[in-house]
């Protein structure tokens, strides 16, 4: 199995790391997330043509994750999506769709076990 770089960082270091990558001409590939024990694991993937880097943070219930849309403007779609499907409290997304991106009837369907304000 080929190894891929995954840096686990704490949520408040995220913006600093993202800015460093942006200055090194990295492009944001995707933000993925998955349920882990007591929280949501978010992976930010970046690519610079010959290098593929992932930043990983764990959003604990009640944590506020700051949006990186001030650095990577197109991250807003990913962040809105994660906010709606997983219920991660991401703040400062621009533009913030306020749970109106997806027309779904269930709140935070991918995190149904714990309800929407638990994480």
């Amino acid at each position: 199995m080929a190894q891929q770089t995954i840096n686990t960082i704490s949520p408040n270091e995220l913006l600093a790391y993202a800015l460093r990558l942006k200055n090194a001409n990295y492009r944001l590939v995707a933000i993925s997330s998955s349920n882990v024990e007591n929280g949501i694991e978010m992976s930010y993937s970046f690519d610079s043509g010959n290098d593929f880097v992932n930043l990983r943070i764990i959003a604990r219930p009640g944590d506020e994750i700051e949006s990186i849309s001030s650095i990577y403007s197109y991250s807003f779609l990913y962040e809105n999506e994660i906010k709606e499907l997983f219920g991660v409290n991401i703040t400062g997304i621009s533009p913030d769709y306020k749970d109106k991106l997806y027309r779904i009837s269930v709140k935070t369907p991918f995190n149904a076990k714990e309800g929407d304000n638990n994480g």
Partner: protein
Amino acid sequence: MGKETVIPFGPQHPVLPEPIHLDLVLEDETVVEAIPSIGYIHRGLEKLVEKKDYQQYTYVAERICGICSFMHGMGYCMSIESIMGVQVPERAEFLRTIWAELSRIHSHMLWLGLLADALGFESLFMHSWRLREQILDIFEETTGGRVIFSVCDIGGVRRDIDSETLKKITSILDGFEKEYSEITKVFLNDSSVILRTQGLGVLSKQAAFELGAVGPMARASGIDIDMRKSGYAAYGKLKIEPILETAGDCYARTSVRIREVFQSIDLIRQCIAMIPEGEIKVKVSGNPNGEYFTRLEQPRGEVLYYVKANGTKFLDRVRVRTPTFANIPALLETLKGCQLADVPVLILTIDPCISCTER
């Protein structure tokens, strides 16, 4: 400066039979802002991974979208193979590449037809789709399905193509190429097409990078990004050069896609010339444990597969970031400042696949 009006565009709209909704804020006839809302066909396929085991999910992954169906299956299988450390036989890698490139031709032909339709050029639309039919017949003959092939499996492919059929594919492609190059002249030279595409929706190289565009959208603006160069499947053994344009308008995007069809034909020829004999599948046993990010180049651009497994037969998470999702910010940018009448062509120009976007 006129009064601001909001026109709801979609979910039923004249571009393609897939639901996307845009609120277009207009000043007179000029779009000043576009606000998307999607999710009309959110099916929760990513969530389904908790109910279907990792082998069954191959068939679910293929059904994310009908056009890039094969590459969805392939991306998913490649992720699982990377996690489990499975070495796919070389012949299977080549067969996958052949099917993937045929899918690219069929997708681009579909797009060209839709473009002609959006421009109101009905006969061109019919002829593009007539040519596409030959590719669909190749699919049915080799895989059994016209749209969903169910041919990619974890550890290889499920059906082989014998040398007789490979020869037949080459001759079909020869005929296709001849007829296709006649049609491309209409797309690239005809005044009625040029007047509707040239200079429309210009996306500069800088803007395309800033907005994270992928695929033909980025390549038409001069960004050299093509995942096939990373050499997955058999692409590492083929000669491949990304097709770039610099203008960044609708015409450039059309031109990139048109030339990519010729490139795909060339890649298939290379594959058929080089394809080795041998096994097409290795047996896979056990359950995956680990996580992996796979990226490949779909007709619409780069797709990312994130698969996380926990050692049981049910996966923890499958996440698909499709190219249309990545291209929406670029689309919103190009819509600003265009005329209302050009909106259908502009939306089409990113080659939107809404069912991919919403999974």
